[in-house]
């Protein structure tokens, strides 16, 4: 195994990609999606929130003050009476170990949404959620933004694989592969070098999505880890498409099919209720989606994170084993 050759393959694939219009379109797509989701996301910042809490709950008061103005009530009865008035006020108070949310029922959807997110933040042990820096004051991640972010990150895995697939197809079509096969490069070096792009592209696009969607601070280490592990399925599918497609045209057709297979669990996972989600347990992108969602919502600890990552690995491994014979067969003709 020689690092020189691995990096060389990576370098050339990158240059080849940059000079390919199709690849450029592929790489720009997630950025456009990010802007789209940024635009359609409701701007919670513009909401003027009015909270009511109990006078003796100092910590609750301090937490809520970060998000809007807070009125104090002496008793639960007064609190409920206050919420019942005509303005959109929301009561949040602590009862024993847990927090209660009290709504009148006629608040705007956005306010209700925000109230629930804050409640979730207070309730989870993850106090980081409430420790926003000054600049992050009063910032909430709307569900559409969470969806947009996970969607963009997951298409970046698929697109990273597509770039790999396109490079392979082109090498096959030009016959350059054959020339490479009479050099000392090993198959493993070629595969590794070629895979780097499938990891780098999602990492860059995830980073851009965070910037464009203007997401508040989150656990970047977990985000990077889940991005790297999730890229593997994109790489595997990219290699499969590359070796089974005889031309760019059939490559595009195969990419459409596999792209939808990988994205469907994400889209439906958002829509379907929790109890039906088991039907996507086979899909690595479903598990990536689940982790990403929780990372954005600041509601995942290391142990459940690790378990979800193991799920990603397991499902990727299973799908890889299923595809392996096709890939091997394809590689043979690809090499000849």
């Amino acid at each position: 195994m020689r690092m020189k050759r691995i990096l060389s393959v990576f370098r050339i694939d990158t240059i080849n990609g940059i000079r390919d219009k199709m690849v450029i379109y592929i790489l720009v797509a997630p950025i456009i999606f990010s802007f789209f989701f940024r635009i359609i996301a409701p701007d919670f910042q513009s909401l003027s929130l009015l909270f009511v809490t109990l006078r003796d709950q100092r910590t609750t008061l301090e937490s809520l003050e970060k998000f809007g103005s807070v009125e104090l009530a002496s008793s639960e009865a007064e609190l409920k009476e206050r919420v019942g008035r005509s303005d959109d006020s929301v009561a949040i108070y602590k009862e024993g170990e847990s927090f209660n949310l009290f709504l009148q029922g006629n608040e705007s959807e956005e306010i209700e949404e925000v109230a629930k997110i804050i409640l979730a933040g207070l309730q989870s042990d993850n106090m980081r959620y409430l420790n926003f820096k000054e600049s992050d004051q009063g910032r909430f991640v709307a569900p559409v933004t969470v969806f947009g972010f996970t969607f963009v990150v997951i298409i970046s895995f698929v697109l990273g694989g597509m770039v790999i697939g396109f490079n392979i197809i082109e090498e096959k079509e030009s016959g350059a592969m054959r020339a490479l096969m009479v050099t000392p490069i090993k198959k493993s070096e070629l595969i590794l070098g070629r895979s780097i792009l499938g990891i780098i592209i999602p990492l860059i696009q995830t980073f851009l999505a965070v910037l464009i969607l203007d997401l508040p601070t989150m656990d970047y280490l977990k985000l990077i880890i889940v991005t790297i592990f999730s890229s593997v399925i994109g790489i595997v599918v990219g290699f499969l498409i590359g070796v089974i497609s005889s031309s760019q045209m059939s490559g595009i057709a195969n990419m459409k099919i596999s792209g939808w297979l990988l994205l469907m669990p994400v889209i439906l996972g958002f829509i379907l209720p929790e109890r039906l989600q088991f039907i996507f347990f086979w899909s690595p992108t479903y598990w990536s989606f689940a982790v990403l969602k929780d990372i954005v919502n600041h509601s995942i600890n290391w142990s459940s994170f690790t378990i979800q990552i193991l799920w990603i690995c397991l499902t990727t491994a299973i799908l890889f084993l299923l595809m392996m014979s096709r890939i091997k067969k394809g590689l043979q003709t690809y090499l000849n």
Partner: protein
Amino acid sequence: MIQVSDLYYSYRKDKGFAVNGISFEVNEGEIFGFLGPNGAGKSTTQKILAGLLPVQKGKIRVMDVDVSATTPDFYNKIGVSFENPNLYLKLTGIENLEYFASMYDVPTEDPVHLLDMVGLKDVAKRRAGEYSKGMQQRLVFARSLINKPKVWFLDEPVSGLDPSTSAAIKELIKEKRKEGTTIFLTTHNMHIADELCDRVAFIVSGEISLIDSPRNLKLQHGKKLVEIEYRANGSLKRDSLSLVQNADRQKLNSLLDHEVIETIHSKEATLEEIFIKVTGEELEK
């Protein structure tokens, strides 16, 4: 340097052989040519020798390495030039060479020097996709020299090139032989075989019909010939006749006696004529 015995190859699971039981040896430092028409099995043989196609049946040793079990080090020592240009079309000429140079564990040639040798220095920074077919072919040729190979495989090295480029490439091949490179070369052009090869094998339909040096072949088969053009029944006819074979001599005499002769000149037998005589096939179909 190369030993091949009883080599068969079929693209279609034993239905018809592209290579049909050939055996030959290439000595160190010689240019060994495979001469035969299109579809004879030349490229297939080269691909098997270079390890690009599996050895289905037969034994091949190149530099004492069994080709069915090659190691990366084997590829450090061989160079392969292909019949059809197979380049990274979005990379420039120089990038193509640099990329391949980075694959080797042995000292490599300077890409600029190689491009200069094949007359592509001026277009080094243009993409290979913008090159003409001839330029692409020269780049593929140059690429095959990047690792200073000990054994060099050339598939139709000058076919489709203009005469002056072709002459330059031929000079390069001769130079490499002087440096001691062993060269396996395929061609359907008898002039190439005649000019470059120390020994040639005639190959048709996957079978070798003879192996010898062009000089020996011409000594053995190259009886004096006469090319004659004459008018018979109002139309112009053309014939080549041997000066030693009786039937031909009689025909020549009768032509001289009875027909109107337009042109007549004696001529050495060419490799192509010997090829036709031996194999019953023409080189250009």
